[in-house]
């Protein structure tokens, strides 16, 4: 399993909010697909798929706050 991680967004950003997932759990994704949208300040940040595979797990859903480095989901 390859984790989908909240990246370091720099400048002391420690927490972000999950806006939405672009794919449902169990669906196949390709490397570089925009996978999940996070929001901080007035910026939407798209976390892209680190690898191609099946989006096996989604651990956080819309509206939840997550920390930098947190595992959002997993791809197999």
């Amino acid at each position, binding site marked *: 399993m390859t984790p989908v991680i909240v990246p370091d*967004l*720099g400048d002391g*950003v420690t927490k972000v909010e999950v806006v939405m997932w672009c794919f449902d759990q169990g669906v196949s994704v390709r490397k570089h697909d*925009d996978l999940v949208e996070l929001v901080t*300040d007035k*910026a939407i*940040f*798209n976390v*892209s798929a680190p690898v191609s595979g099946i989006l096996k797990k989604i651990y956080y859903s819309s509206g939840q706050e997550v920390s930098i480095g947190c595992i959002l989901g997993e791809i197999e």
Partner: protein
Amino acid sequence: MIEIIDLGLIHFKTALLKQKQAVLDVASGGPDLLMLCEHPKTITLGRKYKEANLFQSRDSLNKQGFTVVEVDRGGDVSLHAPGQLIFYPILNLKRNNLGIREYLKKLEQVAVDLLADFDIVANGDDGNRGIWVGQRKIASIGVGVSRWVTYHGMGLNLYTDLSLFNVIRPCGLDIQMTALSGETKKYFDMSEIKCRSAENFKKVFGDK
């Protein structure tokens, strides 16, 4: 090297398609870009928008010539119209060693420097993103980032018809909007402002 592209007066959705294509190009190693343009009357709804911040139904807005679009940017409700200069930077944050907040501050700085050229003292605000002249908002910011490349950006009111803002609560705030022409009582040539904006943008983002 930052390439400057003038899209002229262009529909919001067409400009968005051009941005998305440019994001792919920049993410694949292409040069950073700054797209400059104006939009016909358009109301955009960011991911955090609240319907209550539209003061009229979408049907009514459409009949008055507004296009209403839900978009993948941060922020609430925003309005674009001729006379508002739009900045769409397509910038690779990793390559430019920029975090998101630093990028937003630099984008604000572009507008602050431009307004200073016309003796307007303006400021960014970390709490309420955008550019302010006193308590009046002159530019709005809402950005998206995909594969570490930015899209969407900033709308700066030069000689926008400010009465158009009466149909929304801009950014979800009870605020007064302003424009450069209103602050200076002068009319400005869009082409000249675009040239100055491009220079300021390159200066702020360190392009030689």
